[in-house]
């Protein structure tokens, strides 16, 4: 069993007990524990079930690479699935639940899959579920969805807060181990601004566990001294519990800081996403130990040798009383020696190398440990826990020589540099045959904007084997980064780390090397996704020769750990199966983030009321206070209608329209785009922008205009007012304000840069209120002494005036067909004007109307709406708007495009009105069918509905649509299918349904 030792545990505060629960069971650990070490101290070795076969899974590693031990953490608003216990710091009250089992962790029904393992080979799902086709949707998919996914999605809103932070540094060092600290110090001594990120709570990395000396003193002393120096330097920032998550173009990097994960009682953001721009990035990300592939290597109790050592030294936890060590390199001997010195039993060290190890092996033997060279594990005994191992020769096929009882196995297949961050932005790797690992190729780093490398890998992440090489390499990396960012590094000598005298490693990708199928089927590569040696070999045989294909076919490395333990072993097996060298097989792509980061951290502060910006007009508060039903229009929220009490939206819209057409309505039109265009060439410029002539407009007058893209398609419309000889005010649609301003500046800056025109977007400078209805003039006359009579301010004129004591401009324009004035005042007066109009209009029953009333009234008048009658494929000619296209002008944007054969095609659908024979409202966007079917077997069509409403003015449904030969077919009846299967018959009519002669506005 695993237990807490009486001694050891350098990271623990044994005076402080910490209570937590696992699957409801109350357990106790110490301050300084990780959840992993605390579980192991309580003999909780079994922590979960694997994804496919539901095999029992125990803790394998001690850090970010852990594939097995992932749990659901917290409850309610703080529940989060798939959290690694090895990177979860213990805190009082922590509650964890294991995942992927039913009904319980100890007894799991899904484990029957394991018995069927031989029937579920690689690609099983692809092969099984492809036929018969209908089964996928109705049988297989629901079943797989039920079984899929490791953790459960949280059900409650996240109870924490999150944020971003932008930081800038000359040198960003990722990794706070010995290499990271030395390179940071060297870079900082040059005066460079340095930032160091460390993913754990502790500085120094593995060095304190692995031992060694620096300049003759223990490595811990070096770490403490270096941290002290860095802390004293004003140009250095140290952040621990902050993982370097990704490296991107141009020196951009993401840091993932976990602020309260270990201390949820703090009132602080839980995670902070650091968005860092650095001149140079040093990746000092260390190395990860590889498992060995032998039968039963997934049984709880089989762990990485380094992890066994970590738990003993850092947390005073022993994994078992009797630990068999199996290795292909010298490093694992450190585990044996450490355990032995703590009084634990090492029945045997199995060294796959026939020639055995170096100085460390001698030290182990001197301690009385049995060492067997050239030996391997034939299989591990046990189910939910290791009970023993069967030993064989590494060179053979697995004939058992001896069985040894033990309760833990510490394995080491060598070390792989953590090259992820080096690789994220294109750094290339080289295969180091001697050490059997990929390491960064220093000649092919990720390139920055200058074409020079901006990432330097150092220390174990660069393949350094011991403290001597690590420190020399890190010192050089610090200097190089300083130099590359324009600083002069000090020419001090690098600290002298101790060298280790280790015998060469022997690559072991399968144990024993001639293992038969029965052993290979139990030799796990990917623990979380249940990928075995036999699966990768099968994939190769079936033709999935590319490593990327084999990955997806087998799901190797596709689990939440992204194959940190399994990838190298897997591609070595693949290479072997394809009979090609490992570098030829290559690696799969390393993509950020290094380990999963929370979605909430990516979202940052953007939630609740600041999820996204909402634009509000100066009158928005009144709308809110008066029950407006809002609709989104871009980022604005505009009132759709103002229902009273229990009134339906349709009834409210009808009431608002009837009131407006009958007497007086108000519309908050402040969101309309308003762009000032000024300069001697302003008229010429607008003549190019609009299809009609604007330069002939007289000051004091307004003209409606259409704007097309270069391709001739109608993109915006609005009323242009000429303010003076040099100045125009262009109204755009609400949604077009920013894009049309950008369009204008694009042409002015890129094409017509010598034209003397300036523009300014003044959309938000003005509150604009449409005063609409037969009483519009009467109510305004109550508020002004300026002449706004039919002659004093005629239709399509504008005038500055004083209204209710405010500086105002009145535009006599109408989008409803009524007598109408749009009154603009500075936005700061907007609410005051609205209030004044409501008060003055009370005697006429004044009512505000919303966007739906606006839409219905314009449709009753046959006015088009950008976005309804247009969709980016419609030209003005389709809308019978030739009257708005100047024949006198040589050119305007879109003119030539509109002369293309397809644009001039008489078969283009054209705008008409549609009247249902039964008075009903047509479905929006519906198509009118024609005789016959097209090549795809679909009904032929002859038109579509672009706008459709119930008109309270006419008491029936009205619509506009684009119809083949429409204007020539007045009175024809076309058929329009409904969603429910029925058909509506509609007559083609003039799109102007109401007041065809415009008598209502010409008063």
């Amino acid at each position, binding site marked *: 069993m695993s237990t807490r030792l009486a001694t050891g545990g350098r990271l623990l505060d044994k005076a402080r007990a910490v209570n937590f629960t696992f699957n409801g069971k109350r357990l106790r650990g110490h301050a300084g524990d990780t959840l992993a070490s605390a579980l192991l101290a309580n003999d909780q070795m079994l922590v979960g079930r694997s994804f496919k076969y539901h095999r029992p899974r125990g803790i394998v590693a001690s850090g970010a690479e852990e594939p097995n031990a992932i749990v659901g953490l917290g409850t309610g608003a703080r529940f989060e699935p798939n959290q690694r216990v090895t990177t979860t710091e213990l805190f009082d009250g922590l509650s964890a639940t294991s995942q992927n089992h039913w009904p319980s962790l100890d007894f799991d029904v899904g484990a029957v899959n394991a018995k069927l393992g031989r029937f579920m080979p690689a690609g099983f799902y692809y092969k099984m579920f492809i036929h018969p086709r209908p089964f996928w949707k109705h049988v297989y998919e629901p079943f797989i969805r039920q079984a899929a996914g490791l953790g459960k999605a949280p059900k409650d809103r996240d109870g924490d807060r999150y944020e971003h932070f932008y930081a800038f540094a000359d040198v960003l060092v990722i990794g706070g181990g010995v290499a990271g600290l030395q390179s940071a110090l060297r870079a900082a001594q040059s005066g460079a601004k340095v930032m160091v990120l460390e993913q754990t709570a502790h500085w120094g990395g593995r060095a304190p566990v692995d031992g060694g000396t620096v300049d003759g003193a223990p490595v811990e002393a070096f770490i403490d001294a270096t941290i002290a120096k860095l802390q004293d330097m004003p140009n250095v920032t140290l952040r621990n519990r902050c993982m370097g998550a990704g490296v991107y173009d141009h020196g951009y990097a993401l840091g993932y800081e976990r602020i309260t994960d270990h201390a949820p009682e703090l009132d602080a953001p839980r995670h902070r996403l650091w968005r860092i721009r650095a001149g140079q990035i040093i990746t000092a990300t260390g190395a990860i130990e590889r498992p060995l592939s032998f039968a039963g290597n997934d049984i709880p109790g089989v762990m990485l040798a380094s992890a066994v050592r970590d738990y003993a030294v850092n947390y005073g936890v022993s994994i078992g009383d009797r630990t068999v060590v199996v290795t292909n390199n010298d490093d694992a001997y450190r585990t044996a020696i450490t355990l032995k010195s703590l009084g634990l039993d090492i029945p045997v060290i199995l060294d796959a190398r026939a020639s055995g190890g170096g100085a460390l092996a001698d030290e182990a033997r001197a301690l009385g440990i049995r060492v067997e060279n050239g030996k391997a594990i034939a299989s591990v005994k046990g189910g939910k826990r290791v009970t023993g191992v069967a030993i064989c020769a590494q060179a053979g096929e697995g004939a058992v020589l001896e069985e040894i009882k033990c309760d833990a196995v510490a394995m080491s297949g060598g070390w792989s540099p953590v090259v992820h961050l080096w690789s994220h932005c294109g750094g290339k790797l080289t295969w180091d045959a001697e050490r059997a690992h990929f390491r960064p190729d220093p000649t092919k780093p990720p390139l920055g904007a200058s074409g020079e490398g901006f990432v330097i890998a150092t220390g174990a992440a660069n393949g350094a084997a011991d403290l001597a090489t690590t420190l020399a390499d890190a010192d050089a990396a610090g200097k190089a980064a300083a130099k590359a960012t324009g600083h002069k590094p000090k020419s001090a000598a690098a600290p002298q780390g101790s060298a280790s005298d280790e015998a060469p490693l022997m690559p072991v990708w399968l144990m024993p090397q001639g293992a038969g199928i029965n052993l290979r089927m139990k030799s796990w590569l990917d623990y979380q996704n249940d990928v075995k040696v036999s699966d990768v070999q099968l994939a190769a045989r079936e033709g999935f020769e590319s490593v990327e294909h084999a990955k997806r076919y087998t799901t190797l490395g596709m689990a939440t750990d992204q194959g940190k333990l399994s990838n190298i072993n897997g591609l070595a097996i693949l290479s072997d199966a394809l009979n090609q060298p490992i570098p030829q097989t290559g690696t799969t792509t390393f993509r950020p983030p290094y380990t999963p980061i929370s979605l909430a951290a990516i979202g940052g502060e953007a939630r609740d009321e600041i999820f996204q910006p909402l634009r509000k007009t*100066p009158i928005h508060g009144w709308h809110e206070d008066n029950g407006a039903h809002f609709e989104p229009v871009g980022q604005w929220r505009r009132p759709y209608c103002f229902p009273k009490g229990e009134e339906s939206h349709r009834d409210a819209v009808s009431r608002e329209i009837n009131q407006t057409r009958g007497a007086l309505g108000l519309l908050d039109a402040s969101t309309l785009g308003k762009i000032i265009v000024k300069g001697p060439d302003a008229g010429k410029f607008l003549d190019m922008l609009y299809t009609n002539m604007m330069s002939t407009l007289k000051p004091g007058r307004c003209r409606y205009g259409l704007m097309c893209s270069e391709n001739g398609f109608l993109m915006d419309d609005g009323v242009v007012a000429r303010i003076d000889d040099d100045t125009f005010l262009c109204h755009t649609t609400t949604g077009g304000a920013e894009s049309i301003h950008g369009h204008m500046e694009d042409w002015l800056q890129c094409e017509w840069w010598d034209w003397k025109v300036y523009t300014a977007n003044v959309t*938000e400078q003005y509150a604009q209120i449409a005063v609409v209805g037969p009483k519009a003039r009467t109510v305004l006359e109550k508020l002004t002494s300026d002449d706004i009579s039919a002659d004093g301010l005629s239709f399509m004129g504008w005038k500055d005036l004083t209204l209710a004591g405010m500086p105002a401009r009145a535009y006599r324009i109408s989008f409803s067909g009524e007598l109408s004035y749009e009154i603009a005042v500075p936005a700061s007066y907007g609410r005051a004007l609205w209030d004044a109009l409501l008060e003055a209009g009370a005697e006429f029953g004044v009512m505000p109307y919303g966007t739906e009333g606006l839409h219905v009234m314009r449709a009753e008048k046959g006015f088009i709406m950008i976005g309804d009658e247009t969709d980016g494929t419609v030209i003005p000619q389709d809308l019978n708007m030739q009257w708005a296209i100047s024949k006198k002008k040589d050119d305007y944007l879109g003119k030539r495009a509109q002369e293309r054969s397809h644009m001039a095609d008489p078969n283009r659908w054209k705008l008409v009105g549609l009247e249902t024979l039964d008075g009903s409202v047509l479905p929006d966007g519906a198509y009118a069918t024609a005789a016959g079917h097209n090549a795809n077997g679909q009904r032929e069509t002859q038109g579509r509905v672009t706008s459709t409403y119930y008109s309270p003015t006419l008491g029936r449904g009205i619509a506009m649509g684009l119809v083949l030969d429409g204007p020539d077919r007045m009175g024809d009846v076309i058929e329009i299918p409904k969603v429910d299967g029925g058909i509506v018959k509609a007559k083609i009519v003039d799109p102007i349904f109401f007041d065809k002669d415009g008598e209502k506005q010409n008063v």
Partner: protein
Amino acid sequence: MSNAVSALAGASYDGFARIEDQGLHGMITLRGDLASKEVKAAVKSATGLGMPGQRQALSGKDTAALWMSPDELLLMCPYGDVAAVIEKIETALAGQHFLAVNVSDARTFLRISGAGAREVLAKVCPVDLSPEAFTPGMFRRTRMAQVPAAFWLDEAGAFHLICFRSIADYAFNLLKTSAKPGGEVGYFA
């Protein structure tokens, strides 16, 4: 006139920095050839200030000249003086090609002050706000979370931030969230 109100009506928040609405101020967009002596003279007559350099803010007692782009300035003056100041500019630039337009009511004007002010902005703006990089008198147009914004730093260490009026609530709540106690980063300390 008392009818004119700023979008935030003088709201303020005290977190680890202070966020406050600065109310209505006169703001004039001036576009023209910033290198010309006529425009320089117009700026002088409008604000009493010189021509700000690239990404620079010059400020006087109740005026400011802010560099917006190679051909655009934002001039500030008391809210009630805008018409008179525009008239001065038009007089000074008579016959020149330029644009001077009142944008006072299109903006929200905030002040962020206190020891944590730099951090509050660094959470939402991709700008190097370290004391050595962003010094008094510097002006920056940038992105503040999801909206455009511009700010400068004064000699007393307070930031003056301009954004659009329609997103005043968003901007204020954003800065409030950014300044919430417990969120101190300790980065610029």
